[in-house]
């Protein structure tokens, strides 16, 4: 009895809403079936999972949502406000680094009667926003209201190795809200995308500058990515260091402490250069700029540029101010350190030995505590070697991911899940080297050497050759390689 009453109230409230032209009509429910690959058995996929997210209609009969809502999707279904019928959608553009995606719907009728939402500007801190979405806990659209708590650079969890401008709000953002619009005065001022464990009443949304930058990036039909200039800026607040660099004693200028291996950065910058200004923004001694009323990392200015774009900058070098244009470029050198999506893991199987490139995704197969359980050499190689000794770094370190047990390899006990140094005398700099090294072997035995202490294993080449096909069949591996 009580239950019925509750439904009635809910229905009547919705009925009045339908009459007015409100943003919720353009908010889309997204139901995704995803299937992720298994990074230590790279030809396999995990079970299909169903997950829900939110999206909203943007100009050109498209739907905007988060990249993480549609990553590894096998099928994407979209539903309109209060319309039970599901439509099939597909990804048109996806930007994993800033967690945004644009979808299109095969059946054009889907957009009949739907209006595109317009974007607003970066909302003011302390102003009120409302999130629209389909979070867990029910089937119907849900609204939450909150204030803009603060605006700064936050790590973007989806990519894992990128940070960008994000807005913190106390409006509840829960699983399923992802990709939904955050609205102020009928304009979209953000896309809800992540929460933070351990903090209460905090949700984060992607603000208009990042969204606009993404939309501009895809105008030419391809997404290039968030850009950077390749310098690591650190605060310059010690008086002695400022005098050492002959800088005036004020609150301007952050120091270039190190450079990434990006040619344009290596060419333009030196260590101990001081960045005084970039674009129209003066750089503070803590490395921040005043961006629309908020102090945020100067990296934001570089990030808002497009691939290859040049920004005017003012540097302090050798006691003098110099004007220099600096390039902002997409950096892929740290690809293996971040989470990878939508491109299948690469591997090579030989006599049951599964080789795969060392990556963050692979390390995660050690479980949540991968830092404790993974071989320390893997962690050093992936996270430290390139920065510390680029001359010894490999372009794509390869790991023996697992051994598919068979009599031919049952005695190999010295090296599973270790970093591969050489095979048949050939140094392994990439997965392609593994295939080449085994295929060019001429001795009676294949010799696989591992890092760090030269442990090695051997295989009888003739027996390995015979076992190969049998192992692929036993373990249902469609192909011995994906290079």
């Amino acid at each position, binding site marked *: 009895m009580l239950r019925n009453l509750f439904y009635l109230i809910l229905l009547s409230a919705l009925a009045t809403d339908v009459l007015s032209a409100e943003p919720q009509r353009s908010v889309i429910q997204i139901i995704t079936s995803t299937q992720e690959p298994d990074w230590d058995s790279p030809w396999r996929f995990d079970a299909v999972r169903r997950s829900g997210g939110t999206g909203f209609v943007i100009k050109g009969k498209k739907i905007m949502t988060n990249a993480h809502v549609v990553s590894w999707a096998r099928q994407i279904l979209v539903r309109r406000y209060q319309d039970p019928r599901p439509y099939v959608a597909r990804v048109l553009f996806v930007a994993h680094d800033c967690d945004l995606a644009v979808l299109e719907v095969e059946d054009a009728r889907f957009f009949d009667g739907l209006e595109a939402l317009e974007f607003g500007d970066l909302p003011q801190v302390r102003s009120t926003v409302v999130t629209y979405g389909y979070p867990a806990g029910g089937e119907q659209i849900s609204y939450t209201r909150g204030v803009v708590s603060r605006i700064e650079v936050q790590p973007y969890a989806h990519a894992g190795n990128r940070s960008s401008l994000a807005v913190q709000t106390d409006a509840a953002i829960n699983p399923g809200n992802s990709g939904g619009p955050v609205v102020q005065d009928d304009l979209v001022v953000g896309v809800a995308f992540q929460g933070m464990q351990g903090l209460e009443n905090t949700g984060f949304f992607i603000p208009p500058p990042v969204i606009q930058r993404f939309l501009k990036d895809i105008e030419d039909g391809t997404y290039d990515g968030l850009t950077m200039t390749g310098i690591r800026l650190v605060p310059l607040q010690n008086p002695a260091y400022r005098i050492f660099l002959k800088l005036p004693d004020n609150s301007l200028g952050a120091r270039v402490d190190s450079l990434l291996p990006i040619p344009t950065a290596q060419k333009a910058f030196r260590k101990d250069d001081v960045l005084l200004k970039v674009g129209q923004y003066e750089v503070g001694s803590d490395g921040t700029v005043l961006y629309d009323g908020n102090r945020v990392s100067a990296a934001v200015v570089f990030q808002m540029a497009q691939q290859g774009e040049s920004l005017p900058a003012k540097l302090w070098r050798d006691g003098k101010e110099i004007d220099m244009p600096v390039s902002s470029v997409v950096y892929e050198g740290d690809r293996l350190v971040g989470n990878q999506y939508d491109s299948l893991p690469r591997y090579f199987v030989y006599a049951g030995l599964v080789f795969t490139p060392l990556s963050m995704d692979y390390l995660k197969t050690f479980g949540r505590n991968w830092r404790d359980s993974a071989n320390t050499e893997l962690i050093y190689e992936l996270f430290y070697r390139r920065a*510390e000794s680029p001359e010894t770094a490999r372009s794509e370190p390869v790991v023996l991911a697992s051994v598919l047990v068979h009599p031919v390899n049952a005695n190999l006990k010295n090296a599973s899940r270790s970093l591969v140094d050489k095979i048949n005398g050939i140094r392994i700099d990439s997965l392609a080297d593994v295939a080449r090294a085994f295929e060019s072997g001429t001795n009676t035995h294949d010799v696989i050497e591992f890092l760090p202490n030269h442990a090695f294993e051997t295989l009888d080449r003739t027996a390995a050759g015979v076992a190969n096909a049998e192992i692929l069949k036993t373990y249902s591996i469609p192909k011995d390689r994906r290079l």
Partner: protein
Amino acid sequence: MKITIRFLTMAILTLVCTGGMAAVSPANRTLERSIVTLDVTRKLHDFFLPWSKQVKTVLKSGIVVGPQEILTTADGLENRTLIRLQKGGRGSWWNAEIKWIDYPANLAIVTVADGKFWSGLQPVKLADSMNLSGELQIYRWRSGNLEARKAEFNRFTVGSGEKSDAARVQLELGAEIDQVGFSEPVLMGGKVIGLIYSRTEKVCAALPSPFIRSILDARRRGTYQGLGYFDFTWQPAENPDTLAFLKLPGDPRGVVVIDVPKQSEAQSGLKVRDVILQIDGFDIDIQGDYLDPQYGHLILENLSTRNKWAGDTVRLRISREGREQEISYRMPKAEDAAKFVPEAEFDGEPEYLIVGGLVFQPLSKNYLRRWGQDWKRVAPFRLTYFQYENPSDERPAVVILSQVLPDVYNVGYQDARTLVLERVNGQPVSRLEDLEKALKNSTNDFHVFDFQNGDTLQRVVLDAKELEAANSRVLQRYGIENIHAFSAAKE
């Protein structure tokens, strides 16, 4: 109802206790004259605050082993300020001193100068074989009574001590006893079969008597040079293809050498990919074990401390390219092992050097251990990784900026910590002495500190002229006595 149950439990407990406590027998009367208590006061160092000193007192056991000689473990004796002995579990305390101590072997001989102390004491025998068929008892003084607890033999394994990586045999015992590991003797048939030095969960680890005897005998003969170790690395030869590849004739056996330090190769001629078949006449199996006449199957590493000491020669029978040959391998000293993360000096003060609030310390095991029981997980990865790297002539050791004591002088650097120092004023730095020299020899107005490449801060600049004033301010504000502490052992 409840009361009945509790009463029952108590009754059982009492039973267990009487069962565990050996009745005072004539044998124990003799033992009472051989076991003494040590009260050791020592300085305790905090490697996060290397200038701060605390004092700690530990009680441990010792056994009389010879004329004016009491044997105990070396644990707890480092940085001692006072050792006192008590006999018979009661009565007065006697000032004692160390006659001999060896931290890697974890053994010490303590003595008392006052002759009156020795009256009524009598030595106990250390067993020379490990035939553990009888009942094992752990003894110690507790509140004036000699307590005896039953122990069960688990197994022999090869391990290493807290203060050394040198491998040596250990006796694992199961026993229902708390707070042991302080050199309590384990006896069987009136003879000491081991000294307990650690306890985890329900397993006590003891140094077996034959191992202790071999060191004490060598010490008396003057041939004990400290524990040695094998500095080569090997892998098991469980893969028959590997032995075929290395052309070993006959049945699978031996282990495969995968790494030999340069100086060791030059001395012994041992090479990577040699198959070690025998060590000192003991056959090595494909897992790397040998059959010890005393202890059963043990890993070959134990042959580095089985009646052989640093500087002694070990005979290796190896197979190279299918031909067997004999090699003489001279054992290096465990303490001399070149490591990036050494044990801090035994009995030494923690070293540090403060530069305007920036605290520099040598990277050491003790520093890493300060991060807690699970320091291998908790300590910064980059620092713990030095354990796996090899020092070189150019870089024999590592100095780190461990923390910054905030002062107006170092403003802007207050968040810097656990950075690896590489150069100061352009000079490479591996030790605190290098750092001190680089600061002293500079005539510039600034001191420039360069840290290791990576994703952390790489450069810090300080005002050279203001340094002295900043130093005295920091010392005063943080209550520190000295701006630096260098180990006395170093020049």
